[in-house]
């Protein structure tokens, strides 16, 4: 039915360029470094002579209707077509009309087959995706796991970060719940409402093509470094009146020492000592002075209690992780540190000098006794 319609439609174009098409498509295939070659030919106009027809479609064995319509406008605004990279660069199996028969059961199977063409020109990024958790999900049999074209589009490939917020909304196509949290967070709000270039989008923390499972022990112990990528950057933080020492001070704290030891020695062993996100949240991070923030003083005890269930109201006073020792804020710590800052050298030097003098005097006495 629709197959016959396709045949009828394409049958209209028994163009004389058929031979030319075959020859040049073969030429294009003869090298794997298509990117470096000049445009093979002007196939686009030839293909569009059929595929610009909005009614062109076929029905797959799954019963899905596959539209075969390609909008010329869409092609002309994509990154590939204006650069001379035309149909046959990706559709390498189709050299002429009539096309070879396709054996895909459903649309997804077709996409998962055709996207393999991307690696011809983008081998590095393709390799990276093979290490991603998306690829692992596909390996485990999840056909819905994303492939290149799910994020970048197929015929309508556009620069992925124009505007920058496009990155996060692209991820949000599947990860909607997290995207909603992110949108309402400090970072997401600044991105979407102000197009702020400094706040992180999904890929800044999760990586781009080789996205790893963020639920692993390894990701956890390394996560403070992700935050530090921006929050330990003095120039960046001073723009927002934030302290860029938070990471260094965290690393000296009880939690931070624990995590740095695990990071160095047992990165794949799960450890519960708090990382940044345990207290600040992950996708839903808010300003600390926002009353809804998990680290706002009104919520801080509840946040501590997630790990320290018996903690009472005085408990939050024990948290000094991100603040330099200060006479007003942490008086106990301030005076303890001040005491030991002089006491340790005092005891050390007192012992060394006194014992040293005793050794000298005892040696001199002994020498004198043995003199004739």
């Amino acid at each position: 039915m629709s197959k016959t319609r396709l045949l009828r439609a394409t049958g209209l174009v028994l163009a004389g360029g058929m031979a030319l098409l075959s020859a040049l498509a073969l030429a294009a295939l003869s090298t794997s470094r298509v990117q470096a070659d000049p445009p093979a030919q002007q196939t686009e106009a030839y293909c569009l002579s059929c595929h610009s027809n909005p009614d062109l479609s076929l029905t797959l064995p799954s019963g899905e209707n596959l539209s075969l319509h390609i909008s010329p406008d869409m092609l002309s605004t994509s990154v590939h077509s204006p650069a001379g990279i035309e149909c046959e660069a990706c559709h390498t199996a189709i050299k002429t009309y009539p096309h070879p028969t396709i054996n895909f059961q459903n649309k997804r199977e077709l996409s998962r087959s055709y996207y393999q063409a991307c690696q011809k020109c983008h081998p590095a990024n393709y390799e990276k995706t093979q290490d991603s958790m998306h690829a692992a999900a596909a390996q485990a049999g999840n056909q819905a796991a994303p492939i290149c074209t799910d994020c970048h589009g197929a015929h309508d490939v556009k620069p992925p970060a124009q505007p920058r917020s496009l990155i996060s909304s692209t991820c949000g196509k599947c990860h909607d719940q997290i995207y909603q949290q992110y949108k309402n967070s400090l970072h997401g709000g600044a991105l979407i409402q102000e197009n702020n270039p400094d706040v992180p989008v999904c890929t800044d923390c999760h990586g781009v093509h080789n996205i790893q499972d963020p639920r692993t022990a390894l990701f956890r112990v390394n996560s403070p470094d992700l935050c530090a990528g921006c929050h330990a950057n003095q120039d960046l933080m001073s723009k927002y009146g934030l302290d860029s020492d938070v990471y260094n001070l965290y690393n000296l704290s009880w939690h931070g020492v624990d995590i740095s030891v695990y990071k160095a020695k047992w990165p794949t062993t799960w450890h519960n000592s708090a990382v940044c996100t345990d207290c600040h949240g992950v996708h839903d991070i808010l300003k600390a002075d926002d009353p809804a923030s998990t680290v706002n003083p009104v919520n801080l005890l509840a946040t501590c209690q997630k790990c320290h269930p018996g903690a009472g109201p005085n408990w939050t006073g024990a948290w000094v992780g991100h603040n330099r020792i200060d006479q007003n804020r942490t008086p106990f710590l301030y005076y303890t540190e001040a005491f030991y800052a002089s006491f340790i050298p005092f005891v050390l030097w007192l012992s060394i000098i006194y014992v040293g003098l005793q050794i000298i005097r005892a040696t001199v006495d002994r020498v004198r006794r043995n003199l004739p």
Partner: protein
Amino acid sequence: MNAPSKQPAATAASVKLERTFQRFTLNQRWEHAILFLSVAGLLFTGLPQKYQTTGWGQWIISSPERLGQIQQIHHIFALLLIAEVLYHLIRGISLMARRRLPGAIFPTWQDLRDAWQMLKYLLFLTRKKPVYGKFNFEQKFTYWFLFFGIGILVLSGLVLWFPLFITRFLPGGIIPAAYLAHSNEAIVAAVFIVIWHFYHVHLQRLNLSIFTGRLSEDELREYHTAEFQRLTGEATVKSGNQGDSQ
């Protein structure tokens, strides 16, 4: 309490019977042994925790389970030390209640004068060493330095062991302060023991009286002259001036 053990006087010039004097009771010797054991155990299990980001610390703490074991051992030695501290305090208080607490270990003005005299001696400003009683100022300083040091370590250690309980009564700021104090005080105590105490009891002269409980007559006369006089009623002449006393 430190009666000399009576022994017959020497009968021949070649045979010398040495009188010894009790310096520490059996209780005190046991207390020192337990203190020694627990402090050594606490330092060996505590220092790798303090320095767990260093190579040698991580060599000792070789697995997450090992860290847990080391903390458990630390707690066991801590209980031993706490038991010793409580015994020491309760015994001291009960002796005080019966007005039988020996006063020899308490600091006096004489100790300051002795220290000043010793300093002059060490700087070659005088040839006269101070004359000491049962405990000289160095030994008193050792005792009281470690008395308060261990007090700080026990209290801060308990805060770190039971932080949730402590913060029911005390402000949370206590906890990081206790962490800092525990960590620093341990270093102070270790440095002090190694430099000060080890020099005085091992290098300056080997003084094993805390293990044997006794000092020889010569040692007592030489190093605790005033105590020797008090115990024996004998006049002493400093051996430094007159050669070895017979």
